[in-house]
Every structure is written in structure tokens, then in C-alpha cells.
């Protein structure tokens, strides 16, 4: 027997034969915990570890128990590893779904100091009585210090699976999204998926078939049987060839159906380079698919059996064990015990025996045992015991011996068998996740003892019709011929549902061994005592045992959702793929209820964890977020711009010169603008053209002041309020011609106010003849500001910009220095100021011309901070500083801008509300610190007394605060209760720095109150 093994000394090893997925002609070197190992192309990390006798792959979450591989696919709960290093390190990767590649480096997780020797294992002895169901909930109500000083440090040190990647490093890989449209999408490329695709594609529907693994055909090539008279694998190859030849079929492997969402939206997670990181291009691609119909052909997952020691390394699902033998030529042991409640597990025994592995015994929990497969096993000389169970697998780092008992008993051992691996099978549960994501309901199948999709309660789309169909084992049937029939029917149903002609479901014919019915076994043995139940694991990853669920039930947790959260059953990264049904069966039994009455927890996407990179797609680095750039962006960038984000725009906060601090640069710019000439890139300001016979009437409703009577060629500052009366935007409006106005908005208001106008026009005043166009980006707009503003424009030459030809608050079209321009005589600084708009494509050239011509006039660009200080010196409000969505124009002393002539405008009625007219409202004032210092931004002024919470009463707050280099002191604006009536009063602003700032209430206009400087 041992002679068939390559290395007879090892217990888990590569077999000399078998392994349909591996290529034995080439070896791959990889490492596990730094130890060098060998594998073959086609191996998964899991199969390669087993081939290297690495049975122990990790430690459990709570008790740090040694754990080995249980499964062979995405349902694996234990074998989570850290993969890669540095910029490519990723924790919690499943060994069973990780394809082996040259140089793969994996580390086991959740152990200290080493995998072989772990201190935390003591937890299991010391704390298994403490860390029971609801531990966290119970501890939280104990005295606080006990939690903080005793439990939390302990839990924090021992909890957690993989390590987070280094926060200083960036993922070296790239990712992308891909939008795709199909009529029918089939998830799962096993024989059912292939059959369903064939039938659906025959209708002419556009079909996408995806398979999460690198190989097609699912379990059928392992499990045997014939399809259309040929071996399953041959049929798979033939069908794939047929599908590939069809133009309306797209096949993708290494792509998992991650989630099903409303109205036929589906996410496909394609892993492009995980199996070969040396390959260039994106690592993962997230397919965002719109389809008319979805077929889930995701197969079924085998259930573990709950017996004592079912988590000892070497205890494996029976199907996984034969997968390792057939697919990868690896056996996890030399002498195997099989425990089952169904006929299917006999296949494992037969396959293993044929591969040269000794089957110590088959324990069939059914009193009457199995059928034809059992007979075949007996005929092959295998010892088969009916009505028998595993009493206990001895603790340790791998299986050494198995105690046998009666299934109907309490666990009293009647025999001990030496074995190094155990194959278990508790029956099969269809993969119902994708069916359930969007509301598909389940029904309990008594014969198979599993939940299966209920086709009468399918997920429905916008038209009330089902848009998900299940196929094959995903529907419930486990027998090959029934699987193919169901799949062909699913293909026909989906094609028809997608609007294609009805197809005759013409399934391939199949032959397999007949099977006798399984019998549910939720606890092994049925009357196991507490000592056994405390060692019977339901959820391997979160360390939840039969006794925990029973305790939860006794403590009153009747809802399966509550029990899940109380015990953490099914809450780990495998989302309970193995534990779910077993757990709720135990819960039902303890509650004296039926399983269908207890029901399942909710299945949520993704089916299996997907990478954060795939979710982000291409959005990283330069394209992480769109940056909006003005036409002069590059000039600013090369001339010292200290960037400030303003929405998605980047605007220069200031232009730094060598050796300057930001504050020094700002002071220089502000002073220079008042004394010489400043240039501001004002291109980001919103510009909305409003045109039509009713445009004047419309604008009179949008603005609080009158716009319809504005004369052509003139500008007016306007305020906009929301329906509730709150100030939402401001800006200068220019009358362009008889029925056209140009409305300037704030930078942040361009899109918002455009949408606001369209909303009123489309939903309320649809009878008004008005069109609005957002021309914000058509123009580069430059503010030319300061005593020398006119001189520089006159030097450039062209249109007349004199006081007489272009008075304050007027605009003219013309030519400046050869540029077609529109010049507005408006000022947000209090200086002589022009805003010149030129075509955006000519913006940089015009800026260059101004810089060149301005040299002799002391030209200097200034940034947004300069803009803010200049306006604050003049007491001009700023939307977003002086307003915050709760401020009305009256609060800011802007009553002059509220028309009394107009019958109505947005906000007018709201201003009549008692709270809006309250004389106690906080109102705008200027604030001057007593010592000339700068008030902290956002600081609150405190008054007398305290409120109901014992906090000091507040009487105002700072809305804008700056150092003014022109006035050589701090200046601020704020909203203060009855502020304008309290001029000269000194109020206190406690800072977060512990200092109390004393400030005098003054007029908000600090500079040139009469406006003489701007009007020259």
C-alpha cells in the first residue's frame, strides 16, 4: 500500500498517479512560513500544502486550536493565509482558491509565536468556559474597569485573523471595471451551467457563462457517471467546444458571480493575474453586468458532521478528500475513516481505495446503511458499519485515532481505530446565495434535508416577473440525470424569460449509480453529552460549537438572526457556508421547533470576499478623483501655487515665492493688490445664461431683488434664497440683451444653481419660456484688481475702459490686446477692478499678456486667501462662510436686497415666519480683538448663565477671521445675538487652546466704508 506514495514517511502526500489538473512535467517552488516547498502547475496552494505534508495551516480565531484544510473550494473556513509581501501583501486569502505559481510566498495567520507552538492554545483550556456564546454581550454589562483592564487587552491581543497591510504602502496592482450587457447570464460552469448555456444559447439569446475556477465541469469529472454515453470530462470538453463556436456565447473562467442586485444587475469578479502575477495588466476586473435573466448553476456544498473533534487537522469533507485525490493526486492520509449519513461519501472511499489509500472503516449513521455504492464498497473489501458514528477524534495537530460509538447513543466508545484522516459527509446544501441576494425564497426539502430555492417565490424584476432561475444541484437535485434535466429546463425558461422563442429542453442523458436516501444527522452521536458537544464545531472560523448554539437557545435567543449575532455563527469571512444549516438545525432541535420554522439567516453579496481594489476599479493615482483645472492651472502650478481644493476644483490659495511662508505670501499679495495690481483667476465662478421671453419674470422669482428691470449693459448683485428663506447663493447678474441675462454664481454654486433653476423650470414653472445654459467653462475669467488695473488694460489697448465708457457695475464687449473679451466693472475687493472674460482656450495667452503688460505696474497674482481677506476687509459676505444653510439675508444686514416691489420670490413667504422675524436672531457684525490678534475660526461667544446641559450659553460665533496686512491686525466677522444693537460691546470667545479671546463688536466694513477706491 505504501509503495504508491512518493514519500512513504509522510501521511499526507502526493500520489504517484491521478491529478487530472496538474502538470507533473514542471515543478514550482513556493514557500509556506518561509519553508521552501514544491508543487506543480495546476495545484492550488491547498493541494500543494497537502502534498508537502503541511496538514496544519492555521489557528482558530478564539481558542487558537490547530486547524487544517476542511474543504477544496471557496467554502474553506480554516486555510486562510497572508499572501505576498510589501506592496503585494494580502491577508485572509484562501489556500483552496489560490492557484499555485512560481515564487508564491504564504504565511499562516492567527498564531503566536509560531504555527507549531501557539501560546493562545491555552485559551482553549483556560477560557473555553468563559468565551462562550454571547461573551461580548455579557461582559459589556459587567463593571466597566473589569472590561477595560482585564478582558479587552486580552481579547485584542488574541483576536483578529490576518494582519492589515502596511499603511504606508500602496497596492502595486491595478484594477478595472467593465460594463457588459447580456440576455442570459449563467453563474457556474459545471455540467449544469454548461447544459443551461447550451439550451439558452440555442434560442439566439446573448449568453454569458462564468466559472469561478480555472477549469470547467465542476464536480462531475470527480464524481463519475456518464453523460451522453461518454465520461463526464469528455462531455464537458465537447460542450465547451460547441459553446465556443457560437457567436452569441461568451465564456469566462476565473470569474465569480459575486452578487445579484435589482432588475438584473449582476457583479462578476474576474481574477486575471492572481495565478500569474508576472503577467502584466489589471489584477482583477469587476464586471458590472446588466442582463434580462440570471441562471445560478452554483452547485452544492457538502455539510460537515458535528462530532467531537471534528476540527482536528485531517478531518475533511468527503467530497474535498476525493477532489484532492482525483484533481491533484494528493491524499491527506494513508488510513482513512469515512463517516456519513448518505451514499455519496462511499464514492470517496472507493476512489481513495482505488488510489491506494487504506480505508479503515466506513461509519454509516443510517441504521439500515446505504445502497448500491455501499454494496460496491463491501465487495471491494472495505469494512462498513451501519448505525455507527464517530464518538470522538482525539485532539492534536492531526488525526491519530477515532473512537466509534452507536449513532443512537450518547458517545460511549465501543472501539478505537487508528487513522490519520477522516472523511465526513452530512449531506449536501444547494448554493442558494445568488438566488437569495435579491429576495428569492427557500423551501425545506425533507428528503434531502436541505433548503432549496422555491421557484414559485423567485426574485422579481421591475415587471413583476422572475429574473433568476436555478439550474442543477443549485435547484436541489443531486443525481446527475436530474441535474441535467433541471439545467436544460432552466436554460429554456431563462431564454424565454429574456424574450426569446421557447426552446425544447433537450437535456443530455446521464447514468450514475442509484442512491438510497440520506438521513439527517445534526449531532453525532444523536445523544452526545455536554463533553462531546463542547468539542463539536459548527463554525470553524469563528469557533462556534454545538454547545454555544444550545446555550443561546436556552438563554432565549429564538430568532436565527439573533442567535447568529449572539454566537457569531456564520459571521466569519466564509459567511457560514459550512456552518449555517448545521447551526440552525441545532437551534431548531434545542427550541423544539422545526427547521423550516427557524429559517435561515440572510444571504448577502458578495458570495465570496472580493478585493477592495476591484471595487475601486481604475480610480487610483492620477484618476482617483477628477480634478477640475482652469485654463491657467499649469501656469499656477509652475509659479508656486499652494493648492486649495474648492469642490473638485483646485485653486491657488496663494502663490509662494522662495523662502516665504504661506502667511507671508498671502500678506504680500493682499498688500500689493491694494497698492498696485493683483490678478485673480476667477474662472471657476459659475456663469449661467438665462434666455427667453419669460427670463426676466423667472429671475425675479429666483433672486430676492429685482432683475427684470436691469438695463442692458449693467450688472447687479443678487441674492438667492431657498423656498425656506435661507440664503443659498449670490453673485453678479448682467443683462445681455432684451431677453438674455448672464448670472454669475459662486464656484460651488455653478452646477447646483443650474440644477436649481432647471428644477423650477421643469417641475413648477414648465409654462415659462426660459432656457438656461451653463457656460461656466466657456470662459477664462480674470479679475484685474488694484489702483493700476485700468492702466494695464489701457496699455494692452482695445476697448475703452475709462470711468465714463465703462462705469462701475456695467459691462461691455470688445477687444483687449487682440483678445475678444467681455469686461465687467465689478469689485469683490473694494478696489478699482475689472473682471475680464475671454474664451477658455485663450485664457493662458491672455493671462500671459496681462502679466507681461503689468510688470511696470507691479502686477502680482493672488490666490483665494487674498480674495477672502480683501472681501472681508470690505465686509462682503461669502456664501459658505457667513452662511451655512440656516442664515437668512436679514441676518447679514442685506435687507436692501430684498425687493419690496415684487409680489413674490423664492423665500419671501418663509421670511414672514415668526422665527425668521425674531429680533433675537444672530446677526452679522465685525469683530476686532482687543489685542489685535486673530480670532480662532468658528469660535463661539459665551454669554451669561448655562443651558439645560450645564454648558455656557452661546451668543454668537465667528464666521470669517483673518490677519489683515493692510490694517496690520486681526479682523473677523461673526453672527452675534442682537449684534448690530451692541456696537462697541466686548464679548468673549473661549478658544480650544484654552485662551479666552476678547473682541469688540464693530461695523463689518473695516476698509474704505464709502467705497471711494472702487469707484474711480
Amino acid at each position: 500500500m505504501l509503495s504508491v506514495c512518493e514519500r512513504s514517511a509522510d501521511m499526507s502526500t502526493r500520489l504517484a498517479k491521478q491529478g487530472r489538473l496538474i502538470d507533473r512535467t514542471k515543478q514550482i517552488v513556493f514557500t509556506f512560513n518561509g519553508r521552501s516547498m514544491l508543487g506543480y502547475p495546476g495545484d492550488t496552494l491547498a493541494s500543494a500544502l497537502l502534498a508537502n505534508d503541511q496538514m496544519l495551516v492555521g489557528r482558530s480565531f478564539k481558542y487558537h486550536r490547530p486547524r487544517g484544510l476542511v474543504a477544496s473550494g471557496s467554502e474553506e473556513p480554516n486555510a486562510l493565509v497572508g499572501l505576498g509581501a510589501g506592496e503585494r501583501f494580502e491577508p485572509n486569502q484562501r489556500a483552496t482558491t489560490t492557484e499555485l505559481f512560481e515564487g508564491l510566498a504564504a504565511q499562516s495567520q492567527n498564531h503566536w509565536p509560531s504555527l507549531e507552538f501557539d501560546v493562545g492554545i491555552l485559551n482553549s483550556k483556560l477560557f473555553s468556559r468563559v468565551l462562550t456564546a454571547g461573551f461580548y454581550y455579557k461582559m459589556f454589562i459587567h463593571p466597566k474597569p473589569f472590561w477595560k483592564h482585564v478582558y479587552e487587552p486580552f481579547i485584542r491581543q488574541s483576536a483578529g485573523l490576518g494582519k492589515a497591510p502596511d499603511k504606508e504602502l500602496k497596492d502595486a496592482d491595478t484594477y478595472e471595471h467593465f460594463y457588459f450587457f447580456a440576455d442570459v447570464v449563467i453563474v457556474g460552469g459545471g455540467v449544469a451551467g454548461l447544459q443551461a448555456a447550451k439550451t439558452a444559447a440555442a434560442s439566439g439569446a446573448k449568453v454569458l457563462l462564468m466559472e469561478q475556477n480555472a477549469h470547467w465541469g465542476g464536480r462531475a469529472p470527480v464524481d463519475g457517471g456518464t453523460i451522453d454515453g461518454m465520461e463526464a470530462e469528455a462531455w464537458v470538453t465537447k460542450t465547451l467546444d460547441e459553446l465556443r463556436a457560437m457567436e452569441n456565447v461568451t465564456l469566462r473562467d476565473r470569474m465569480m458571480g459575486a452578487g445579484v442586485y435589482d432588475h438584473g444587475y449582476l457583479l462578476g469578479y474576474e481574477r486575471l493575474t492572481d495565478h500569474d502575477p508576472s503577467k502584466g495588466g489589471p489584477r482583477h476586473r469587476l464586471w458590472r453586468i446588466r442582463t434580462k435573466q440570471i441562471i445560478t448553476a452554483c452547485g452544492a456544498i457538502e455539510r460537515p458532521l458535528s462530532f467531537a473533534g471534528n476540527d482536528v487537522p485531517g478531518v475533511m469533507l468527503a467530497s474535498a478528500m476525493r477532489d484532492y485525490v482525483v484533481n491533484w493526486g494528493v491524499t491527506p492520509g494513508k488510513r482513512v475513516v469515512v463517516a456519513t449519513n448518505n451514499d455519496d461519501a462511499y464514492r470517496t472511499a472507493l476512489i481513495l481505495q482505488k488510489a491506494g489509500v487504506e480505508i479503515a472503516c466506513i461509519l454509516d449513521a443510517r441504521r439500515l446503511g446505504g445502497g448500491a455504492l455501499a454494496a460496491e464498497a463491501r465487495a471491494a473489501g472495505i469494512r462498513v458499519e451501519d448505525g455507527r458514528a464517530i464518538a470522538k477524534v482525539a485532539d492534536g495537530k492531526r488525526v491519530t485515532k477515532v473512537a466509534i460509538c452507536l449513532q443512537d447513543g450518547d458517545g460511549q466508545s465501543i472501539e478505537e481505530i487508528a487513522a490519520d484522516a477522516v472523511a465526513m459527509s452530512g449531506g449536501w446544501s444547494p448554493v442558494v446565495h445568488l438566488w437569495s441576494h435579491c429576495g428569492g425564497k427557500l423551501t425545506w426539502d425533507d428528503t434531502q434535508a436541505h433548503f432549496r430555492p422555491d421557484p414559485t417565490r423567485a426574485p422579481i424584476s421591475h415587471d413583476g416577473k422572475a429574473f433568476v432561475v436555478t439550474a442543477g444541484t443549485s435547484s436541489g437535485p443531486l443525481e446527475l440525470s436530474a441535474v441535467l434535466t433541471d439545467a436544460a429546463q432552466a436554460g429554456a425558461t431563462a431564454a424565454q424569460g429574456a424574450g426569446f422563442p421557447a426552446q425544447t429542453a433537450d437535456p443530455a442523458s446521464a447514468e450514475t449509480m442509484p442512491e438510497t436516501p440520506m438521513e439527517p444527522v445534526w449531532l453525532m452521536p444523536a445523544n452526545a453529552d455536554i463533553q462531546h458537544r463542547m468539542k463539536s464545531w459548527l463554525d470553524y472560523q469563528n469557533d462556534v460549537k454545538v454547545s454555544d448554539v444550545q446555550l443561546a437557545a436556552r438563554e432565549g435567543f429564538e430568532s436565527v438572526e439573533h442567535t447568529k449575532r449572539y454566537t457569531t455563527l456564520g459571521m466569519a469571512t466564509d459567511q457560514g457556508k459550512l456552518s449555517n444549516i448545521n447551526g440552525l438545525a441545532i437551534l431548531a432541535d434545542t427550541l423544539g421547533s422545526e427547521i423550516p420554522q427557524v429559517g435561515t439567516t440572510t444571504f448577502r453579496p458578495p458570495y465570496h470576499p472580493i478585493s477592495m481594489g476591484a471595487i475601486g476599479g481604475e480610480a487610483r493615482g492620477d484618476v482617483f478623483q477628477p480634478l477640475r483645472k482652469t485654463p491657467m492651472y499649469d501656469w499656477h502650478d509652475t509659479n508656486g501655487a499652494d493648492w486649495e481644493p474648492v469642490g473638485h476644483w483646485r485653486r491657488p490659495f496663494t502663490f509662494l515665492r522662495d523662502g516665504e511662508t504661506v502667511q507671508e505670501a498671502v500678506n504680500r499679495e493682499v498688500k500689493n493688490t491694494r497698492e498696485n495690481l493683483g490678478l485673480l483667476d476667477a474662472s471657476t465662478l459659475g456663469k449661467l445664461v438665462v434666455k427667453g421671453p419669460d427670463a426676466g419674470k423667472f429671475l425675479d422669482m429666483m433672486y430676492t431683488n429685482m432683475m427684470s428691470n436691469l438695463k442692458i449693459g449693467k450688472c447687479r448683485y443678487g441674492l438667492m434664497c431657498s423656498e425656506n428663506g435661507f440664503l443659498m447663493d449670490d453673485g453678479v447678474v448682467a443683462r445681455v440683451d432684451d431677453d438674455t441675462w448672464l448670472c454669475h454664481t459662486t464656484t460651488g454654486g455653478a452646477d447646483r444653481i443650474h440644477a436649481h433653476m432647471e428644477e423650477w423650470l421643469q417641475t413648477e414653472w414648465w409654462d415659462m419660456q426660459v432656457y438656461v445654459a451653463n457656460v461656466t467653462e466657456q470662459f477664462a475669467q480674470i479679475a484685474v484688481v488694484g489702483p493700476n488695473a485700468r492702466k494695464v488694460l489701457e496699455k494692452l489697448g482695445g476697448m475703452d475702459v475709462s470711468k465714463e465708457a465703462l462705469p462701475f457695475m456695467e459691462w461691455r464687449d470688445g477687444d483687449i490686446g487682440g483678445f475678444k473679451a467681455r469686461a465687467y466693472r465689478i469689485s469683490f475687493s473694494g478696489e478699482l477692478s475689472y473682471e475680464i472674460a475671454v474664451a477658455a482656450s485663450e485664457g493662458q495667452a491672455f493671462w500671459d499678456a496681462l502679466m507681461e503688460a503689468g510688470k511696470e505696474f507691479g502686477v502680482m497674482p493672488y490666490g483665494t486667501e487674498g480674495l477672502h481677506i480683501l472681501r472681508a476687509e470690505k465686509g462682503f459676505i461669502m456664501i459658505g462662510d457667513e452662511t451655512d444653510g440656516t442664515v437668512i439675508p436679514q441676518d447679514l444686514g442685506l435687507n436692501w436686497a430684498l425687493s419690496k416691489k415684487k409680489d413674490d420670490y423664492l423665500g419671501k413667504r418663509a421670511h414672514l415666519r415668526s422665527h425668521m422675524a425674531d429680533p433675537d436672531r444672530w446677526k452679522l457684525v465685525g469683530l476686532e480683538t482687543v489685542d489685535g490678534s486673530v480670532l480662532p475660526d468658528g469660535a463661539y461667544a459665551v454669554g451669561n448663565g448655562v443651558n439645560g446641559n450645564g454648558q455656557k450659553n452661546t451668543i454668537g460665533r465667528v464666521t470669517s477671521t483673518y490677519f489683515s496686512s493692510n490694517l496690520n491686525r486681526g479682523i473677523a466677522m461673526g453672527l452675534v445675538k442682537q449684534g448690530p444693537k451692541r456696537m462697541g460691546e466686548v464679548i468673549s470667545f473661549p478658544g480650544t487652546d484654552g485662551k479666552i479671546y476678547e473682541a469688540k463688536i464693530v461695523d463689518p466694513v473695516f476698509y474704505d466704508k464709502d467705497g471711494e477706491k472702487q469707484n474711480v
Partner: protein
Amino acid sequence: MSNAVSVLNGASFTGLAEVKDAGLVGMITLRGDLASKSLAKAVKECTGCAIPGIRKVTQADGTTVVWMSPDELLIVTAYQDVDAKVDALSTALTGAHALVVNVSDARAMFTVSGSGAREVLAKVAPVDFAADQFVPGGFRRTRLAQVAGAFWLDTDACFNIVCFRSVGQYVFDLLTTSADANAEVGVY
């Protein structure tokens, strides 16, 4: 005119597809009643094109008329012809309720061409690019990853992409990222 520069000044990239800054392109927004005969006549006289159907473009003599919404067209023409066309349209539509405005400089335009063009765009826009679904003359006003965008397909298998000027660099980077030669999907 010599001062005018398009957002990426003619930059180009070749990967799965060729991505190019189309340079300065004239664009006119026309809002009005698309069903009116006088508007159709004005558009025809000015551009040689008929009013396009929903999500379609019409083309004649180097000018493309794009359906933008039930009451909006975009006229795409030579940059230097825009002022004249704006004047002509405005004059032709005197008395009608319509808005004609030059938006040439508010936009960036790119072309994406070559066999991989459909896949490159399918990575950034939620649109069905299958050859039997997105046909020459077809148009979508949609999004390009995180920003607004629109595109139509010429008869010579070239996609013309329009976005706002301020995000021109983002869209160019987005398209070149998607056109990475190693990132072929292989479905179109």
C-alpha cells in the same frame, strides 16, 4: 485665434485603442423646440444636417448635429466657423423661443479609435458597446467613470468623446489607463 489652445494640445496615446485630443473643435448649444419646422429649417440651412433622432447624430460636410435632450442639440463644427454659425442660427431663429450659445471652449474632445475602442469605453461608461447595439450614428450622454461625458460613433469606427474642459486631463488619463495594452478584455 492663434492664442487658442485645446486642453491637452493634441496629446495622443496608443494602446488597446488610439486615444487623441481632437484639438480645437467648434460647439454650439441649441435649445429650442426640436419638433418645430422653423428650427429644423434653420439647422438644415446652417449645418446641412437634419434633426437627429433620440440618441442619434446626423452629419454633413464635416458638421455633426447631436441629440442632447428633448429640447437641446449640440452642433459640432470647425472652431473658426462657430461665431458665424451662432449668428446665422440666431438670426434664422429670431422670434422663436430658442437659445444659441457658443460652448466650444467649455469642452474638451477626444477620439478613441481602433479595434479596442469599444472595450476601452466599456470600462468607463455604463453603455452596451456590442457592435449590433452601438452602431455608427449612435450617441450617448452618460458618464465617463466619475464625470459627465458624451460620445458618438462615426461611420469610420471612431468614437468622438466630449467632456467638460476642466476635467480634460482626467478623461484623457482615464481613457489611456483603460487602453493599457495589457488590459484587453477580448469580448468585442
